[in-house]
């Protein structure tokens, strides 16, 4: 009864394989640029990552449940945009329904949830490939932003939708608080709640999960709906940060989201990984981007360095994690 203890400890540390990478990045950053370690800059990094981190949270849960969602990145722009178009006047690019401005956030979250539910419907009900369904949905959902707006940026937004992404609470941007609270909830939920553990069971072996009495379909619907809602919330935070909803909002994020989740130890094969690990993945990506910006690497070569760092982080996560990745 003494042997197991180190094992448990080791398993816990496995979530934190990226911590050394983060420490190295902090040291390297501090050496390369004096601004880097200032509270202001680090706050900026956190704020900049807060929206995308919600996508990583969503994707990590979906991956752990053994599924896949590419369309999250399109929901980031479309959910708040459609919600906003339901509240703003026609002259500002609205649909002319002009619902009360206070409804913008609930509507956006609802739209995100609906997109998630539709993804879930196609994937669970029709047993279609999650990758391709959500790829098609990525295109369609983005089209649902581009179509009604005719490619134009929405910049006359109700204050309600701008608030969360731009407010400051207790000296820190509200977005950081929100992301922090949601990650804490995610870590707790996936670690200690029945429904959270069910995600691991479903992702680890769906048939066994069903045989263990877990309502697999319900869990999967739930995770897609929560995913879509988180993507909409990410869109709301980003809207507040940018002050407008452009047609490109969220476009191209999904690859970074996957990279963050996987270098953070979440498996693409389901059933493996933690939210805490995913969070460290987000931080690595955010710090790398910030350092590259600060030292002003030529835009032409930036991708090479950036991709190289992802590879290195991946290797460290592989070596420290000890197991082959899928």
């Amino acid at each position, binding site marked *: 009864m003494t042997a197991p203890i180190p094992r448990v400890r080791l398993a816990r540390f496995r979530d934190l394989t990226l911590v050394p990478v983060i420490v190295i990045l902090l040291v390297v950053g501090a050496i390369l640029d004096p601004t880097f370690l200032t509270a202001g800059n680090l706050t*900026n990094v956190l704020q900049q990552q807060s929206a995308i981190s919600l996508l990583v949270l969503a994707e990590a849960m979906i991956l752990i449940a053994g599924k896949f969602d590419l369309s999250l990145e399109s929901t980031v722009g479309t959910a708040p945009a459609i919600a906003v178009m339901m509240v703003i006047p026609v002259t500002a690019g609205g649909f002319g329904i002009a619902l009360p401005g206070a409804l913008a956030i609930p509507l956006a979250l609802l739209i995100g949830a609906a997109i998630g539910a539709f993804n879930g419907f196609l994937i669970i009900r029709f047993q279609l490939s999650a990758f391709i369904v959500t790829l098609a949905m990525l295109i369609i959902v983005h089209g649902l932003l581009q179509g009604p707006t005719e490619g134009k940026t929405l910049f006359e937004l109700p204050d309600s939708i701008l608030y969360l992404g731009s407010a400051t609470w207790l000296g820190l941007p509200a977005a950081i608080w929100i992301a922090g609270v949601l990650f804490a909830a995610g870590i707790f939920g996936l670690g200690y709640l029945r429904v959270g553990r069910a995600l691991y069971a479903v992702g680890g072996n769906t048939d066994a999960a069903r045989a263990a009495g877990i309502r697999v379909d319900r869990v999967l619907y739930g995770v897609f709906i929560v995913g879509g809602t988180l993507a909409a919330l990410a869109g709301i935070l980003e809207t507040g940060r*940018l002050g407008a909803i452009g*047609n*490109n909002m969220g476009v191209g994020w999904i690859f970074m989201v996957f990279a963050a989740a996987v270098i953070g130890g979440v498996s693409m094969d389901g059933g493996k990984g933690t939210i805490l690990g995913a969070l460290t993945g987000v931080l690595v990506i955010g710090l790398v*981007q910030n350092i590259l*910006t600060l030292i002003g690497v030529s835009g032409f070569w930036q991708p090479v360095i950036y991709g190289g760092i992802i590879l290195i982080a991946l290797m460290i996560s592989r070596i420290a994690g000890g197991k082959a990745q899928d």
Partner: protein
Amino acid sequence: GSGTSTTTTAEGGGGKVGIDHPRADSDFWNSYIKYVPQMAGELKVDLMPATNSQNDVAKLVNNVQALIGQGAKAIVMAPQDTGAIANTLQQLENKKIPVVTVDTRPDKGKVFMVVRADNRAYGTKACEFLGEKLGGKGKVVQLQGALSSINGRDRSEAFLECMKTKFPGITVFSEPTEWEGSKAASMLQTRLEQNPDIKGIYMHAGGVHLAPTLQVLKQKGLLVPPTDAKHIFVVSNDGIPQEFEAIRKGDIDATVSQPADLYAKYALYYAKAALEGKTFKAGPTDHDSTIIQLPNGLEDQLPAPLVTKDNVDDKSLWGNQVK
């Protein structure tokens, strides 16, 4: 200095200028990027290492924050999404950091100066050229950029509007190519198959559209001199050296020269001026352009000449200066 500038404060132009480049994958912007350090040397601007936002306004916002953190006192940027930069401009205004935007005009938020050529004018010029060459009738194709880009949309809308009002006899097919050569080639090929009587093409970006268009025309045997009845009139946009080359050879007929060199020069010029405390007013300038008043600042509308066989060898065109 320009005739409309006045110096209000005496403290000479101190402070670093931060600059963000919008993308690194288009010929036009790459020429601009190359001009920037050269012009900074000439104008003695204390330029910080440039950041690049790779066509992503969220990255642009992050980059600007980093530049300010590092002590930039003025910012030059080229936001490809003109709405989503509003908050950043607001923050910069609060920090009293002047902003010069290049190529695009932000919808909201204070700017010290917008340095751009009128993209709508590009579309109109191309329309007028094609309309006249076709004698006001026939079919033309416009290879659009990305519909989510303001410049692409301006060119497209102005082109269509001008066709509708001035040359109602001309049918326009608009092909959204997302700035991709591959899509452009496929769409043009398909359209020519469907309508062999197309007589004109307007390309939104010579950098991506020129070679594919020529290749399609060549394959169809339509790459013939203007004297030939089969000739299709092609107007391009950007003014890169390869377009000039094509004009000289008679492969295409015209291009709108978007002044990459002047963009770089005047962006830095105005940034420096802002740091020196100079101010500007609407009116003509000393460099063949006009400053106009915007609700949120000023805009220096640089000339964007239409280049045809007649003026293609003009040394002052930026496309004739690069190598």
